[in-house]
């Protein structure tokens, strides 16, 4: 899977690059508008992550260009502007997702994966992780083919974990993923804790290995190492 990251801030671009790289994606970086247009016209990508504010152009123009050359890539816009008009505009011109800076890398990772899932698999398909199988379309979870009924939040949490295997996830990123900015962080951490407790219990009750590890003070990690 090839991903193009168009972001003029070198440090941020590097971070995104190395984070997504760990997930097995081939990530390329374009630091400017010109650089990006060149890459878009030469190669094809499965997903393009584009910043709206570039020193020599806007991300909107890049999205429009992608649409003009009938590119099949999924588009995620990242922007420092949290204006509703920008959100609406970016969806109108054909981008698939919109993320406001500052964002969590794990959130971006989850969004990229969700986008690719929607694009690649088309019809029904399953996400597999050892004994866990998630039917993405039906929103159902199976452990060794035994159905595990999960609440909406628990399902979202598990999907977020599966999208970020072996990555240390901060409590803030998880809370934001589940509730957006509706709920104050201090409170949401407590609810998060109870959701994780329930999820862990439901999974292990069905014979699933306990993959959820807590990292003191920071958050959680999902994985077997």
């Amino acid at each position, binding site marked *: 899977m090839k991903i193009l990251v168009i972001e003029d*801030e070198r*440090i*941020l671009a590097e*971070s*995104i690059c*190395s*984070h997504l790289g*760990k997930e097995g994606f081939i990530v390329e970086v374009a630091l400017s508008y010109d650089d990006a247009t060149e890459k878009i016209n030469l190669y094809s990508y499965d997903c393009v992550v584009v910043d709206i*504010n570039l020193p020599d152009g806007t991300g909107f123009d890049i999205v429009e260009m992608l649409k003009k050359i009938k590119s099949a890539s999924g588009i995620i816009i990242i922007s*420092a*502007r*949290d204006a*509703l008009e920008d959100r609406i505009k970016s969806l109108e011109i054909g981008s698939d997702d919109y993320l406001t*800076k*500052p*964002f*969590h*890398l*794990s959130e971006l990772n989850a969004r990229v994966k969700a986008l690719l899932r929607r694009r690649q698999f088309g019809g029904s398909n399953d996400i597999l992780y050892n004994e866990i199988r998630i039917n993405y379309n039906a929103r159902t979870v199976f452990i060794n083919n035994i159905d595990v009924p999960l609440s909406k*939040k628990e399902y979202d949490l598990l999907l977020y974990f599966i999208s970020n295997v072996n*990555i*240390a996830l*901060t409590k*803030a*990123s998880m809370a934001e993923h589940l*509730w957006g900015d*509706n*709920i*104050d*962080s*201090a*409170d*949401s951490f*407590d*609810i998060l804790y*109870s959701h994780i407790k329930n999820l862990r219990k439901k999974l292990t009750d069905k014979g699933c290995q306990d993959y959820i590890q807590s*990292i*003191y*003070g*920071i*958050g959680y990690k999902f994985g077997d190492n």
Partner: protein
Amino acid sequence: MKLLGRTNLYYFFFSIITYIIIAGSFYVVVEHLIYSEVEERLRVERLDFENFVSTNAWTEGSFFVEYKINLQRANDTLQPILAFKDTVLINRYNQQPVPFREYSFYSKIGGRPYRVSIRKSLIESITLLEYITITMLLSLSVGLALLFIFQRRISKVLWKPFFETLTKAKEFEVNDAKPLNLDQQDIFEFNELNSSLVKMTDKIARDYNNLKQFTENASHEIQTPLAMINSRVEELIQVKGLSTDQMRWIQDIYESTLRLSKMNYALLLLAKIDNGQFYGHDQINVSEMVEEKLASFEEIFNLKIIHLTYHKTGDLLLDMNTTLCDVLITNLINNAVKHNINPGKIGITLSLDQFVIENSGEPLSTDPASLFERFRKQNKASNSLGLGLAIVKKICDVHHLSIRYDWTGEVHRVVLSKR
């Protein structure tokens, strides 16, 4: 008072004063003319009389005209007498008082001193004076009235460009970020006014645009480094084998950065509302929005053992920006949760013109009104930014809603109502 009304008033007072002065002085002048004419004639008649008595003997019948002449024996001629004076005598036939001018002097008739008074009737002169005065006053009134109407018309025409400018200036909206569009005028002063207004509004529009640009840029400039810190910290926590201390430091950095970006977001929101960058108003059913919000807060109510009572007597409809209404309700509910006790209560009452949210909590130690100020916190050590209620207040201000905070005992109440 209107400009034209004021000019008319001044004109009216000015006319009255002019009228009185002109009328008064005219009367005085004409009267003086008549008197000097009459007195001149009386002096001539004195000469005639003296000529007559020096050659002829004086008898009562010498002058037959009524009251024409009056002689009185005088013992001496040393008593000073008033030469001219006004007097009124009764007409012998119709008993009407008639004004006379009387000229008195001493004269010797047959070697004996007499006090002689020659009189002349003023009746024709006074009638004349009256007619002249009335005619003059009438023509003066007509003149002033015509002048008044004329100047009213003129004022209306002259001030027309001014009123046009005024109408346009009133319609000026800073949100449009466009200077006034004013036409060239024939009158120098109005042209000056228009060009300074155009210059001023152009500056306002440009400043406003700059400010908007600045807020956006500031947001971008601050959010980007914050995003970089965040992303680096997230990478850092992936590193294995960090000591507990190191993890704690990273966590502190991470939390402070999150707090900072939340604060930046909140301040930016305040600045944007201040700049009126949220246009687009919709009729919003607040009750519906509150119900939606409450559903997403359900988990937190359960966790914090908060008992919610929701009561609706009518649909509260407000003409608001959707985003801001969402922020307003979220902040109010968040505030009620944050400053609650455990276990506690939240009561929400919605009626046709009010939204009341009550929560149980610790007694307030500060002035309730000051809670709407920026960075004002009841508990200094609390984790809150102290911007939530400031944003609420700002949103209410721009939408002309009234908001009130009060508390009795352990119940804190925020009342939002239509003004």
